[in-house]
């Protein structure tokens, strides 16, 4: 295991300390908890946004704490949902009296832990709502299953709901726009290599030199198929066709695109993926309103990428355009 770490047991704490030391103008840490909140939290009168999940997805989630996005990011152990007490502390620390929206990714553990935290907060009289992101079209959505996973599309929920809250939206309004994003966002990912959870010390699965996994989840959950290596254009074709089959967009519609690296893939390759994604959309007459290319929701050092499309309307466009100022996501 080749990692720049000191001790697998303390990676999360040390990472959070490194973050607070890097960005004290943006964030602080709640003493005794793996919770990062806005330096100026709680912001009186503003709806507060709390997101979180397992660690290993950096810059998610604490990297999005700041003006125009999140009020708190809760960091669980690597790839493990944070516990309710941590989430509860986050809620208490950021509630500015206007209520708190929890942004949950659709994993059984995350859903249950956030739900318990919500119950705890409500017992203390804090107004709490929640939304669950499920953008990963790799997983079949049927009444028999727990539904799709939440992956990189979550970042658009942070951005847009964050802008709404920053603009003074009420809890119900912020929740409504978050749900609108969830309804209109779809993602799918793939991986060239596995990653190593520090505490495990070895990869959870293997891929040979000529194999890739399509539909990979962000914790190394299996995808929809394992295939021979494909060219970048074929990969994009495949991901985009699954996404476009599920998202009702047609010629004349406008979308935001996110090409997200999983940690080990260089920007050069992400840009090559974006070229093809953008060509496909152009051919279909779908207008790209904004594009984000970089690392937004990672899986440690996994090599691979995901593509996210968000169908826009005027409300979503103006909220997407709003400024944001956080350690990992800035928009002027």
């Amino acid at each position, binding site marked *: 295991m080749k990692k720049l770490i000191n001790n697998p047991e303390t990676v999360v704490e040390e990472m959070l300390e490194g973050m607070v030391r890097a960005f004290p103008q943006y964030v602080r840490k709640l003493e005794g908890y793996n919770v990062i909140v806005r330096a100026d939290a709680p912001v009186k009168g503003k709806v507060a946004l709390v997101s979180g999940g397992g660690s290993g997805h950096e810059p998610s989630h604490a990297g999005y704490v700041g003006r125009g996005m999140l009020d708190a990011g809760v960091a*669980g152990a690597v790839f493990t*949902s944070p516990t309710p*007490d941590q989430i509860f502390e986050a809620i208490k620390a950021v509630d500015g009296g206007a209520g708190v929206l929890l942004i949950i990714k659709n994993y*059984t553990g995350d859903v*249950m832990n956030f739900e318990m935290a919500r119950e705890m907060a409500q017992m203390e009289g804090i107004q709490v709502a929640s939304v669950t992101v499920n953008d990963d079209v790799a*997983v079949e959505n049927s009444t*028999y*299953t727990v539904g799709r996973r939440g992956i990189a599309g979550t970042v658009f929920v942070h951005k847009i709901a964050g802008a709404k809250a920053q603009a003074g939206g009420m809890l119900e309004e912020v929740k409504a726009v978050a749900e609108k994003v969830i309804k209109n966002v779809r993602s799918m990912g793939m991986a060239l290599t596995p990653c190593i959870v520090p505490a495990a010390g070895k990869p*959870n699965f293997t891929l040979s030199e000529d194999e890739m996994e399509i539909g990979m989840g962000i914790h*190394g959950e299996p995808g929809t198929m394992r295939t021979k290596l494909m060219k970048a254009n074929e990969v994009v074709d495949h991901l985009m066709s699954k996404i476009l089959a599920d998202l009702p967009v047609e010629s004349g519609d406008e979308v935001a695109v996110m090409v997200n690296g999983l940690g080990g893939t260089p920007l050069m390759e992400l840009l090559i993926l974006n070229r093809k994604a953008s060509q496909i959309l152009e051919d279909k007459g779908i207008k790209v309103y904004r594009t984000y290319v970089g690392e937004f929701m990672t899986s440690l050092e996994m090599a691979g990428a995901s593509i996210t499309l968000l169908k826009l309307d005027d409300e979503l466009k103006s909220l997407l355009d709003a400024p944001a100022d956080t350690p990992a996501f800035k928009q002027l």
Partner: protein
Amino acid sequence: MAVDSAKLIDIIKVIADKITENREYLTQLDSAIGDADHGINMSKGFRAVVEKISDMGEKDCGTILKTVGMTLVSTVGGASGPLYGTAFMRAGQAVAGKNELDFNDLVSLMEAALEGIKYRGKAERGEKTIVDALEPAVEALKLRREEGLETALRDAVEEAKKGMEYTKDIIARKGRASYLGERSLGHQDPGATSCYIMLEAMAARLLDGKKS
């Protein structure tokens, strides 16, 4: 049967030992259809539980069980933390204030635990989860209640075991394993397994000294 606080603490410690013994086994089961952390998470949680309750001998049984639940909730994480945490907290509520538990209390607290897990996880039997081991056990306990602690308990453990083994034959519909669909077939569910291990440990300690 009469379980006072000291004995309850004792039983929980035995459960903790068994979970720790099976740390690798549970993790290995989870690596086949999940994310390879069930044993790690559970043993971390029970290590914290033992520390928390060791000198709670003066407290009532309800408080002890609730403390177990809250400790699991705040240390295990993932899916099993809230599930087992809720189970123990509900169990504690069911026997709130009692300094000694009898057989009827055992049945009520087990029923409450099951309800807690089903409430939290929204799973039904047959979805390849903890419920597949726990529900048949609780049913056996109720069904055999008239035949006395020993028979009922042995039968409950037997049913839990069958339920656990049955998880091999079904497709996961809840939790992380559900992403695998058909590919989850043939693998035993880690949560059902940890549940069986806990029930068996509890029964063994309760029936200690009784002929088996």
